[in-house]
């Protein structure tokens, strides 16, 4: 078997993308220095657990959070076609405070809408980590639960909860928008009950999640936590 990747450097650098490798540059004053993009361009802090405030206040805040679910417009797999109908007159998820946002910074919910290829998982993780706590994961379809029909694929994950804390699974292949709405209501209940602490869980079990993620994402090629 010929080496499929010509990059025969040491193991660590094998999958490192060109632009993330260390490079030497010459400053305007003519002095050379080295740049390590992963260190210099990315923050390498780990996430911290942010404990809830006192109970009464938190309850009120959780109610607000539950009534204002901003969903990241991120679609994976076939489920992404089920999300747009939510905003149509027929389903009108806006009634429940569900709104779409275009950027993970401002979103509080990410919907994993179907099978996740390894390549996509990497983007999902990045987006998830860029969301601000508290944040919720709503997983859609059998594929996220146990791989679904892709259970034996060489490139599709089987269980989402090994890679990020999932709040609500909506089963089905594919679940219809009604089911998704039901999933949102379930999520709301969970938030109001104060049980949707996925972000903290992620921070607590950070190493475990990372290990799982890194096991399948071999060209990790990014900082451990994408702020």
């Amino acid at each position: 078997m010929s080496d499929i990747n010509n990059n025969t450097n040491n193991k660590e650098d094998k999958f490192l993308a060109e632009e993330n490798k260390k490079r030497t540059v010459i400053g305007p004053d003519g002095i050379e220095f080295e740049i390590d993009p992963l260190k210099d361009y990315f923050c390498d802090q780990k996430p911290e657990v942010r404990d809830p405030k006192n109970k009464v206040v938190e309850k009120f805040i959780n109610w607000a959070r539950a009534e204002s679910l901003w969903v990241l417009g991120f679609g994976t797999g076939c489920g992404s076609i089920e999300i747009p109908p939510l905003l149509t007159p027929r389903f009108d998820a806006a009634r429940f405070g569900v709104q779409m946002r275009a950027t993970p910074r401002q979103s509080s919910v990410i919907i994993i809408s179907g099978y996740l290829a390894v390549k996509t998982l990497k983007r999902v993780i990045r987006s998830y980590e860029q969301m601000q706590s508290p944040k919720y994961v709503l997983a859609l379809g059998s594929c996220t639960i146990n791989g679904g029909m892709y259970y034996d694929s060489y490139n599709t994950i089987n269980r989402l909860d090994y890679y990020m804390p999932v709040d609500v699974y909506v089963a089905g292949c594919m679940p219809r928008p009604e089911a998704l709405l039901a999933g949102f209501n379930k999520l709301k209940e969970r938030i109001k009950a104060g049980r949707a602490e996925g972000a903290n869980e992620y921070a607590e079990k950070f190493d475990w999640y990372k290990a799982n993620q890194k096991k399948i994402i071999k060209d990790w090629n990014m900082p451990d936590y994408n702020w």
Partner: protein
Amino acid sequence: MDNIILKLLFTLLGLFIVLNWGLLMSAIMQKIVARVAGRHGIPFYQPWIDLIKLYTKRTAITHGIMFYLGPVFRLGGGVGMFLFIPLIYGSEYFTNFSWSGDLILILYFQFFGMLGMALGAGEGGHPNSVIGISRGLAQFTTVEVPMTLAVISIAVQYQTLSITEIVAAQQGGILNWTLFTNPLATAAAMLSLLGAFRHAPFNLVKAPNEIPIGPPTEYHSSFLGVLRTNNAILHVIEAVLFMNLFFGGATNWFELILKSFLIYFWSVFVGVVFPRFRIEQSVAWFLKVPLVIGILAIIIFI
């Protein structure tokens, strides 16, 4: 001294009313848009919930000092405009600090927020933010042209630049409004208002699909909360400015609410009906019809 404290308290009260009215107004407008599309739309209290949620987010990131200060500048622009604009004609307290400046101050104070926002978004380093800003600035330059013409026109008409005096001159009947005494200036300004509120057809600045929401791409949590607070205030204040200049001002809160609603509704109404312009189209558009109207508005006073 007591007077100052009283004045401050009333100003805070005014700010509170304006903020809540702004939030409510935006909810109502969204509901209207939803109804046009045949949906129920958000609950009327949704903006408040969103605000609470944003302010109570547990984490936030910052790209640097300017990123942090950007929203402060932005909200400062809104609150500052609020402070320098007389809300209720004839009220001793709800004229805020408008004695310290006139119409020109208001016109230029809006740059305060824009500049801060632009710088903050710039430090975010996100190219989309900057694209949004460059579009926004480009559009704004020509949006201001008919507005400038209209302002000059009414300043010539009333021979003053003081907002209070302009409002005073419009008292005594609906026919004294600038809308009727100087319809061309009003028309130019109302077209300019479309660009200022950045609803469709002039919403390429935000352009949710291609450059996710434009300048505030990187803003979140409390930062976004501050920006949204400002939006609520600013929309009312801008409407109040137009109300004062063209629609006879307000002698009580009810009048203010009604008029500002209608003025804001005008931009929403247009936004629902028309599709989006590209940036060079909108830049050019403001240099066509509104410009001509504005020039006519001045010519009639020469």
